[in-house]
Every structure is written in C-alpha cells, then in structure tokens.
C-alpha cells in the first residue's frame, strides 16, 4: 500500500471530509499502517489509551464488559470509523474492547500525533468535534426513543 493510496482511503473517511488532501497525505505518512489478523484486540477495556485508530478496510466490533463478567457486543466498527479518541481526550481508561471481525487494516495515530494534528490543523479538530457531536446526538436520540 503506498502513501497516496492510504491518503485516498482517508479522504473517503467521513471524519476527514473537508480536510485538505495534502494534510491527509501527511497524516497517512506520520501514522502507522497496521494489518490486523482476525480476532486481534486493538484496544482493551480498562487499559490506558495511547493511540487512536482509523479503520481503512475490514470491520471490527466493539464490546463492553458487563457486571457478570461477560462481554456485550455494543456495535460494529465499520470502515472509516475513528475510534479510541475518548480515552485520549478525556484521559480515562479504554471504555470498550475493539476486536477485529476478520482481516482488516487500520491507521494508528499515537496520542502525541493526534494532539499535534488537532492543534496544527483546525479542520481535523473540527472533524473530531463533529464526529463526537454526531455520536452524542445519536445517543440522545436513542434515549429519547425509549
């Protein structure tokens, strides 16, 4: 996979829509591209967070441990999702476990890079905010629907 292809994948990620293509290439270059075997846990609930991930291909699932110790699948993590940012932004342990459903590729941005990007390129910061707001809205809608 070359840098330009990774950047093109990023451009398709909703989170990064509106971010200048040249920026995307820099993000792709500074981040690590990881191939993930099926069943690999990318983040584990309760551990300290040190990076955020963007799904480039394949799909993962998010799980939350419930009171009796069993795991509850809370939802899919499809292509183009940014995950792992809550632990970094709020400085709390990982709130869920993300496990690869099958072979997948992700982009790993370590914490320092993530904050650098937000500071240096406001468009990225706004994109993250938009994503968080959207999720909040979805949760609220969900609650209202009950």
């Amino acid at each position, binding site marked *: *996979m*070359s*840098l*330009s292809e*990774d950047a093109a994948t990023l451009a398709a990620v909703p989170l990064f829509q509106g971010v200048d293509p*040249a920026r995307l*290439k*820099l993000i*792709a*270059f*500074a981040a*690590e*591209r*990881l*191939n*993930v*075997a099926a069943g*690999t846990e*990318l983040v584990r609930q309760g551990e300290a967070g040190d990076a955020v991930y963007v799904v480039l291909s394949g799909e993962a699932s998010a799980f939350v441990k419930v009171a009796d110790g069993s795991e509850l699948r809370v939802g899919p993590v499809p292509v183009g999702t940014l995950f792992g940012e809550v632990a970094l932004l709020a400085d709390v342990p990982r709130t869920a476990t993300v496990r*690869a459903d099958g072979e997948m590729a*992700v982009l*790993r941005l370590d914490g*320092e*890079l993530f904050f*650098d990007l937000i500071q*240096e390129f406001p468009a990225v910061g706004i994109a993250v905010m938009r994503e968080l707001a959207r999720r909040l809205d979805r949760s609220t809608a969900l609650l209202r629907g009950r």
Partner: protein
Amino acid sequence: MQRDFRQFVWRHTAGAQFAMLGIAFASFPFLWLYYEMPKEIVALLGADKGEPLRLFGRDLPASLFGLPLDRPVTLGLQCLILLLLVLINQRFRFWIARLRNLTAERALRRIRFQILSLVLRFPLHAFRQRTAGETLAAMGSDLDSLCGHVGDAVSVPAYQGGTLAVILIFLVWQDPLIAAAAASIYPLSMIVVPRLQRRVNDLSRERGRLTRGLGERIDETFRLVTDIHANDQTRWTRAWLGAQLALIYRVRLDIAQRKFAIKTINTLLQQSGPVLFYAAGGLMVIEGRLDIGTLIAAIAAHKDMATPWRELLDWYQGREDARVKYENTLRLFNRPDLRPAARDAQPEEAVDFRGQAITVEDLVVRDEGEALRLDRVRLTIPAGQLTALVGPSGGGREALALALCGLVEASAGRVRIAGQEIARLPASLVNRRIAYVGPGSGLQARSIADNLAFGLQARPGLGLGGDIDFREALLSGNPADSIEADWVDYAAAGVADREALRRRMVELLSRLGFGDGLFRLGLQARLPAGAVADLGPRIVAARAALDTRLRERGQVDLIARFDEGGYNDHATMAENLLFGLPTDPALDADRLAEHPALHDLLVRCGLAERLFAAGQTIAAVMIELFADLDPGHEMVRRFALVSPGELRHLIALSGRPGDSLTRADRALLTNLPFRVIASRHRLNAVDEALKAAIVEARHRLRTELPGIGIARFDAASVNPAASILDNVLFGRIAADRAGAAGQVPALAADVLESLGLGDELRRLGLDFDVGIGGGRLSLGERQRIALGRVLLRRPDVIVLDDVLGALDATCRADIMTLLREEAAAGVTVVAALGDAGLAEGFDRIVTLERGRILQHGEGRRILRQEMGNSRHEPE
C-alpha cells in the same frame, strides 16, 4: 603543603636544582672560551707574517700530526674550535632545559595532586562554600606558569646570572673602563623595576581571585541551567557572567600594560649601551689605548649581555608571580579545619561492629554559622533493629545521621560503638563497617557493576600493577597505586571472585526490583567479544526457539527475517544493501554514497543515478508533506525522513536543474533513499525494481568488496554489531502487524528466560554505562543502585539519610524487606525520615526537633501517638 614558595622549591626540588647549578657552573669555562675565540681569530688575521702563531697565549708548534700549521690551517683550526664550542654550549643548554622541564612538570603534577588531596580532606560543610569550577580555575593555567617557575628557580639565576658574570669579568679582563661602561646601566633598572613589579603582584592576586569567581559562576550556571531556563533568567545570567568577564578584562589589561612598561624601561637601558661603547671605546681606539680586536670582542660580548639580562628580569617577574600564586592557592585549599590525612600504609586492624549497639553521649553539633544542629543528644541505638530518626528538615535528624557515621565533627560529646569512639577511629575503618546513603549519593559515569563495587575499592589488589611509572609517581608526590589494578575486595562482599560477585550483584538488584531493568539493558547490549564463544551458540539456539514458538502460535509473520536473497521491507535500505551493520566508522549508514569504494560499486551497478532520482522524488514528497509547517516544527523533527536543517536545504534546492547542484547536494539526495524503511514510509520512490536492484548490488558488494567493514547477517552465528535482542530476532519486527511491537520482544524475553539465559543477560546488563551522574537511568533505578552498593559490601551499620522518602512505593517495600533481613543478621539499621508515615515497620522511632530528642521508644507506640497528634495519614 609547604608554607611558602621558597620552602616548596627547596623541599621538593633541591636535588634537581643543585644538578642544574652544577651543569651551569660546568658550562662557564666553555662559555669563556667561546668569547675568547673571536679575539684569537682577529689576532691571527692581524698578526705579521713570520710571527709565531699563538693560540690562547701559547706558541703553536710548526706542524701538527705532519700538517704544517700555517695561517690558513690555523684559521681553519680556530673556526673548528669555535664551532665545537657552539655545540658544547648548546649541549649544556639542552641539559639544563631538559632538567628544567622535568622539574617543572613534576612540580605541576605534585601541586595539582596535593590540591586534590586537600579537597578530599575538606570537611563536608566546606563543599557548601567551594565549587568544582572554582577549584578547576585555581588549578588551571595559573599553576602552569607557577610550576614553570619551579624549574627556573635556581637554574635561571645561576645560568643567566653566571653568563652575565662571565661576560662582565671577560670585559674587565679586556679593559676595566669598558666593563664599567657596560655595567653602568644596570643599577638604574634594579631600582625602578621592583617598584613597578609590586603593583603587578597586587594585580595578579586580584586576577586569581576574579578567575576563581568566574569558575564559581560557570559552575553555578551548569548546575542551575534548568532553573535558569524555567525562570527565564538567561538574559540576567548573561549579564552576570559578562560582569565578571569585564572585571577580569580590566585587571588583565592593566597587568599586561605594566609588564610591558617594565620591559620597555629595560630595553631602553639595554639599547643605549652600545652608544656608550662606541663613544668611549671608539675614542680609546683612536687614541691607541685599545686595540680594535678587543673593542669588537667587547661589543660582541655586550650584545650577548642583553639576553641573560632580559632572562633574569623575566625570571624576577616570574618569581614574584609564582610567589603570589602559591600563596593564593595555599590560602584557598590549606584550610585549618582539614580532616586528618589518610595513611594508606597503616596496618589494618580488623574492627567488627556487628551486633554492637551505638551510644550517643551528650552530642553537640554546630554548623559553620555556629548554630546548634544537635543539642546534647543522648541515645542508645540497639543493634539488630530498625531505628527511624523522624523530624522536620533541619531539626537534627540529618546531623545525627551524619554523626553516626563520623562524617560530621562534634563540638562536644561523642558517639561510641563497641566501646570505641567513632571520631577517634581512622575513617578508613569506620566507613568500611558503617555505610551511609544520603540525599547527595550519586553514581559515577561508569558501568552499573563498577558503581555497585564503589564501596569495595578500599585498596588496590596485589598482582596486576598496570603500566604505572612508580618512580615517576613518587618523584612528583603522586600515589603509587595503579588504577588498573583490581581494587575490588571480594572477601568484603563475601564472594570468592569476579564472577561470583557479578552473580551476587544481579541477585541483589533483582531483589531491589531492578531485575527486569537489567534484563532489558542486557537485551540492548552487544555481545562482548569475550563472551561470543560461550554465549554465541546459545543465542543462535534462542533464535531457533523463538522461530518455533512463533510457528506454534501461527505468528511467523510478526518478524521479517533477514534473507540473503530478498529485500526486507522492515529494514532500512542501507541495511538491505549492506545485509549487515557497518563496523567501520568510515561506513556511515546515512551517507553510504559518500564512501569511495561503495560509490564506485553503486556506479558499476547503475544504481547511483537511480538512487539520485529516487532521492529527488523523496525530497519532493517531504517538501509537499511538510511545506505548511515551519521546518523546525516538532512534527518535522519526529516524522520527516530528513532533519529540519536538511528540509530547509531541500526546499532551497527544489526547482533547481540537476546540473546546477553541487557535489554535496547530489550526495545528500543520493543518500536519502538509504534511510527509507519500505513498509514504514510507503514511498513510491522505492519500488519493486529498485528493491531488486539493491539485492543484486548486495551480492556484488559481497563478492567485489569482501574486505569492507560490515558485520553481515548470518543465520548460523551472532552478529557482534547488533544488540542481543536483534540477534535473537534475526530480522526486523513487522511493524505493520498489529501488536507485533509489543508481542515480539516479550516473546523473545520469554524464550531467553526459558533457555536459562536470563541471568546471563542481566549480568551483561551490569556493563551498561550509566552516563554522567547516572543520567541514562531513571531516578528509581539510580536509587536502587545506590542502595545495592551499600548492601553489597555487608556493613555492620547502615544509615539511610532521607533516602526512603525519595523512593517509589515498590522500591521502598523491597528495601524494607531487605533491611529487615539485614537486621535479623545483627546489622544496625538507622533511617532519617522527614515523615512519620514512612516509619511504618520500624522497631524503634526517635523524633527530633530543634536539635533535641522529643520522643524515643517502640515504633508502633510512637507511630500511634504521632498519627494521633498530626492526624497525618500514612501513605
């Protein structure tokens, strides 16, 4: 040290000075003959034909060894003698110079060593007033000139004064009147010069003081550099340093001017001499009272007087300078309150404090300002128990801890152990049995093992003498101990030899919670040449075992193994080309294309142009990616393939046609691809065709340049240039596999442990160089080593001054367990603590405030009270 400079010279260099004096006197007859010869030659030339030929007032025979002695032959003979005399005089000068340099250098070595010895005898509080920088300044160039003068002390006045005397006597011999004229100028300068010199001496003292002040300020700047930046005091600091330089500048300029004035007066007097000669001597020749040969000889002799006179004058200035510097140095270091000198040769009486209680009897300790630190403290510290001294900082706990080790002088009262007063026992005995770790305890810039053995180096071992020149060391008052000898006292650590000691070190550090750290350091170490035969095959075995382990888990692809026939996407292109690591410093992995032989090879393979083209593409990508950022931006520093400086340069170069680039620019671009790790950087410039070409070049490199300094990767043996971890991996971690970076090293460590290599690696970790002040280790690791150092030498008493509070909680728990074991073996353990909460687990607690004991009793009881009083929660 001798009280004044003259005594120092007499005491230490009398022999050499007399020898120089002897040589000087032996040289004078030849000097006389040297001045006599021109007269003889002129006399020969002026003699009438037929007159008998004379040499030194004697008639010459008509022939010598069958050679008729006519005038040309005699002239030749005379010139030969003159040449011989020149050579002889030079030889004398050479002997004197040699002896002089020897004496001067020995004196320098002696004084420097004496100063350092005195510093080692300073009472501890002196180090709060003196800085290393100040000492360094006092030992610098000033001492150089002082010691140069030690060599000159006798030889110069003897030789130059004698020369002057010879010339004067020679002149008197020729004509008393001329001699009087020649000498008349000297009394005047003898009056004027010393007056000027006195002022110069005062200024020299001032200069010494100011230079030391500068040293002190530089020292402080180094020490407080973080604070200076953190408080934004750089501008003020610059002004502060500049102010001292201004003072030094003024004094130095003044000294130089005055010294020049002295020289000027002298030169003036000297050069007016010939005028007198021409006037008085010329008149006498005209009147026929003096023959012209004598006048020429007299003028030649007088001209030669200039040099010895100038030398004498320089010597006089030098001596005054040296005297001042010596006194200054003495005042600075020969303090009245020095600790007694160590007597290395004294026979060792074995002392044993194990199981002995310490009694403190009415102890009073004052600090340098006469304030009371301890006020009539009475205390018995039982052996085999843990005793805590608790109190606020400055309340007396620190002073008591120091007094227990004999490190601070008592104004009244005493500390006894086993019936002996600690202050009266030689320090060498006390401090071998009583160990102290304080807030200032630190590490030397040596290996971990060396630092651990720091308390075991009381005296050099027998045998190995190293290459120290004992005679020379004694002649300059230096220690005859060889630093190369094995100083470690294995018996003191309770082990038989070096290997056993290293095993003990690993055991101790592991118990202090530093075992994993040592293992990690061992993994990063390279295999020392001496261990290859023993450990090499076992590491290769670990390589295979790791491979099996990965296969079992189906994770073979976590490591990209080195394969001679293929390109490794996880290694740099440089590693791929060399298929190994450079061992020759000329072969810099970042600048391979600049290595002449390698460059030729790249050209032969047709790679030079392709790499250059790839370099241009990479440069363009870097500029595109980082264009909007300042080249100095943190992201450039962390992520760009090029340094900020290189990025600026590449931006400046971009758009310029290829043929306008300089050689260095082309080299920079050609070298760029070598840094690329294909899987990490994902640059199109490094495509499959280029990779194949690199593998091809790798084979040609092997066959065409077999002798080039590369430690090649070889599946069957260890690579001496690679770390042990890399040797076990025999490849690069596939960084694009999720989790590989964490799993692979853990698996490798697991395999090594299971093969029984864990302790071997921890022992290799002992050779890690800790850096200046232990800076390459974390604070916790440094503290663990400082504590391990104390436990290793098995002392009878352990005093920890403000140490436990600074430790992290796990380390504190580890050390408490160890201390408890020591106490069970009869060791007396005392810890000074700032916080009563830390005294949990101590048998006895003593609380001190304002230099007095407030409470003293069983640990748990005191602790309950303290907690109740202050409502202080233990940590």
